[in-house]
Every structure is written in structure tokens, then in C-alpha cells.
């Protein structure tokens, strides 16, 4: 090592004494990508159960929208049934948007994202794990709550399986789209408005096909076509969204 001095900085040896003698200890076996993603998922789940208020907020929002609607419109079940698909899906979309704002915020704030980006693991896999955790904590409970909301809107019990399937599959895509939006708006203070501006247009296909599937299920018609389109969107999102989110996170860290 040679001491050098430069325009902006100076380099000088201060205390030199020992030479390294011991050989580098054999490196500990690295965790594989699957194990890393599993731990990232578990970490987020455990954190969510430590902070239940954040977990309950979107679900409470969804419950309030769908349960207040019959009170505000009319108690006439035939009319409510007509409105049910729209109410359910707008409620689910907004609830998922509400939740996605928190997806990366704490991690960016406390340096966890930085450690993820520098972990030597695939950031895409870690982003996928985070999004999966987010879906398990918001989309999946929303799907479980959908029957309750549907019943309050006068939907018959025979339509419920179709509705649960539609919300479960559709919310996967909503979480994935949300992860891109949340990652893109990481550096911005009070990003809520921009986040909705970015994600809502992308979410429209989910809204349309989800509402259509729900409508068909309510009328007892086969809802395969819109459900399959929802599934196709979820597959497309799963392959592309984590890549985009990882790239956006890298940019936000610079």
C-alpha cells in the first residue's frame, strides 16, 4: 500500500504493525435463494403480527365500505345484488391500495432494503417474498372477508365460492402492481397520491374482470372466462412485477 496524496484527499499510513497470520476462516455456507426468500417472508409475517393495527386497517376499510353501502343505498336486495360486484371490487381495490403504501416504507427507513440490496441474494426473489407476504396479509384476508360482504349485499350463498376465488386471484395482481408503485415512490414524501395515480390505471383490468366474474357468479352463470383472465394477469404480474420492483428499489437507494 503506497501513501498517496491527491487533489481532494490525502492518504497516510497511521499505525502499521502486524501482518495477518491466520488464514481466512472457511466461509460459512451461503443461504440459497429459496431460504433467503423464506426468511424474508417469515420476517414480514412476524412483524405484521407484532403491529396488528396496520394489519387490520385495510380489512376494516373493506368491511366498512361494503357494510355501509346497503344502509346508504336501499335495503332492497334485488338492487343491492345488482350493485354488489362493483361495490366489492372498488372496496377491494381501494383497501389493497391503502395497504400497499406500507409495503416498503419501514424497510426503506430502517435500512433493511439496503441490506437486502447488498445481501448477494437475488433482490427480485426477496421482492417477490415481500409481495407474497403482503398478499397473505391483505389480499388473502380480503378474499376470506368477501363472503361476509357479499351476503350483506344480498348475494345468495351459492355464488360465494366464485366470489372468493375471484377476489383471491385478483388481489394477487393488485399486490404485485402495488409493489411496483410502492417501490417507485420510495424516495418521495407523502407518496400516497402519486402511488394511486401510478397503480390505479394498471389495476383497471383486474377491476373489470374481477367485477365481471363476480357478476356472473351472482347470476349463477359459469365464470370461467374472467377468472382465467384474472389468473393470467396474476401469472404475468408474478413474472414481471418483482423484477420491476427490484429495479425501482435499487434506484431509490442511490
Amino acid at each position, binding site marked *: 500500500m503506497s501513501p498517496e496524496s491527491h487533489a481532494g484527499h490525502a492518504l497516510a499510513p497511521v499505525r502499521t504493525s502486524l501482518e*495477518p497470520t491466520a488464514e481466512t476462516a472457511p466461509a460459512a455456507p451461503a443461504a440459497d435463494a429459496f431460504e433467503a426468500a423464506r426468511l424474508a417472508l417469515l420476517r414480514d409475517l412476524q412483524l405484521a403480527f407484532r403491529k396488528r393495527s396496520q394489519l387490520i386497517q385495510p380489512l376494516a376499510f373493506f368491511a366498512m365500505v361494503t357494510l355501509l353501502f346497503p344502509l346508504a343505498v336501499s335495503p332492497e336486495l334485488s338492487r343491492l345484488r345488482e350493485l354488489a360486484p362493483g361495490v366489492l371490487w372498488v372496496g377491494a381495490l381501494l383497501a389493497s391500495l391503502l395497504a400497499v403504501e406500507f409495503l416498503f416504507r419501514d424497510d426503506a427507513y430502517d435500512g433493511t432494503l439496503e441490506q437486502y440490496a447488498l445481501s448477494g441474494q437475488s433482490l427480485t426473489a426477496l421482492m417477490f417474498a415481500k409481495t407474497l407476504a403482503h398478499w397473505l396479509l391483505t389480499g388473502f384476508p380480503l378474499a376470506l372477508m368477501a363472503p361476509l360482504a357479499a351476503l350483506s349485499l344480498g348475494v345468495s350463498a351459492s355464488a360465494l365460492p366464485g366470489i372468493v376465488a375471484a377476489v383471491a386471484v385478483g388481489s394477487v395482481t393488485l399486490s404485485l402492481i402495488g409493489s411496483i408503485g410502492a417501490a417507485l415512490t420510495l424516495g418521495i414524501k407523502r407518496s400516497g397520491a402519486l402511488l394511486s395515480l401510478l397503480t390505479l390505471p394498471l389495476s383497471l383490468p383486474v377491476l373489470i374482470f374481477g367485477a365481471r366474474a363476480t357478476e356472473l357468479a351472482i347470476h349463477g352463470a359459469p365464470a370461467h372466462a374472467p377468472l382465467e383472465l384474472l389468473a393470467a394477469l396474476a401469472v404475468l404480474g408474478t413474472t414481471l412485477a418483482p423484477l420491476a420492483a427490484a429495479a425501482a428499489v435499487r434506484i431509490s437507494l442511490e
Partner: protein
Amino acid sequence: MADQTLEVENLHLWRGEHHVLRGVHFALARGACLEVCGANGSGKTTLLRTLCGLIYPEDGRVLWNGENVRRDLRAFHAALAYLGHEPPLKSDLTARENLHYWIGIRRQLSAEELTAALARVGALSFCERQVRTLSAGQRRRVALAGIALLAVPLWLLDEPVTNLDAEGRELVAGLIGEQLARGGMVVAAVHQGLPPSVRNLTRLELAA
């Protein structure tokens, strides 16, 4: 593994109109420590973040074992541990859980190793408490245990002795000494200098 080196050539970085890094240039061999000094705002943190590849420099390059780190950033990241000035800990998890997830994402880790590392930094007595209840110095000790557990050749530490008492500063010096004795390398950004017991030290002065 015998020829591990970190070389930095002519690093230039602008932040808007401000020329932060003006031709930073150094080389670090196995078992050597670099102390990056400078006033607040002289670019110590920026330099560390540029070294680990979070920031793209406008000019110059970082070489790890003679290879530009940009060619395989993930392999380089697997060889480095970066500690920013805030310990990367979740306040709602306990110290032990934090290390379990943070380190487990990178390497296989046994519970005994984890306990030993916590004992090494004197954190055993509070490792089952949620991090939100710990003091800044206690958090830093936990973060240091994490860095040591990563068992990687290159440490990049941003203000490692901040918030630590005299005993804690000696602990940092001890951990750095062990890392150097293993043939590892340390780059530490410090505004008041590392404890005098750190040997094999070179100082890099950044002008504001």
C-alpha cells in the same frame, strides 16, 4: 483467496453541483484497515455507498481482486458487509430475531453461533428484548454482532463507534482486530478516529 484486494481508482462523484468525491484513490490488501476521515458533509458516507455499489460514480472504478465490481455485483455483495449509520434492525423484533433474519438471509446460521456472537458484543442480557426498548449504543452492539456473524472478507462501516461508551469502542477495535487477523479488510468512516488499539491502519482524509 490469498490475493484479495480492494482497489479504488480515481473515483469522481457529483451530487448536483457539488463535486463530492474528487479522484479518491486507494488500495487495500488483506489484513489492512482504512480509516476514512473528514468533516461532516465531506462525503464519507457517499464514499462507502459508492464502494459497495449502491451509488454509481461518474468516473473511476472499484476493483475487487482485480475485477471491476460492476461485472459481478452480486458476488461482490456476497463478500462484503455494510453497516450504515443506522443499525438495520426492526424495532418490533427482538435483537435475536433481528439477527436470525438479517444474517439468515445471507448464510446458514446456527443458534449457538448466534448466541456466541451476542455474547461477544455483550448483548446477551438484552437480546430477548424488542429493539425499540434498547438504547442507541445497545442497538449498535447488536448490529456489530451481525457484521461479525456475516463472516465476509470486507467490512464497510459507517461511524462504527458512534453512541458507544469507552468499553464499546474497545469492542469495535477488538472486532476490527479479529477481522484483520483473519486476513479480512475494513473500511471505516469515522469523524473522530478509530480507537488507537487498531493496528495496520491507513488514514484517508476527505476534504470538505
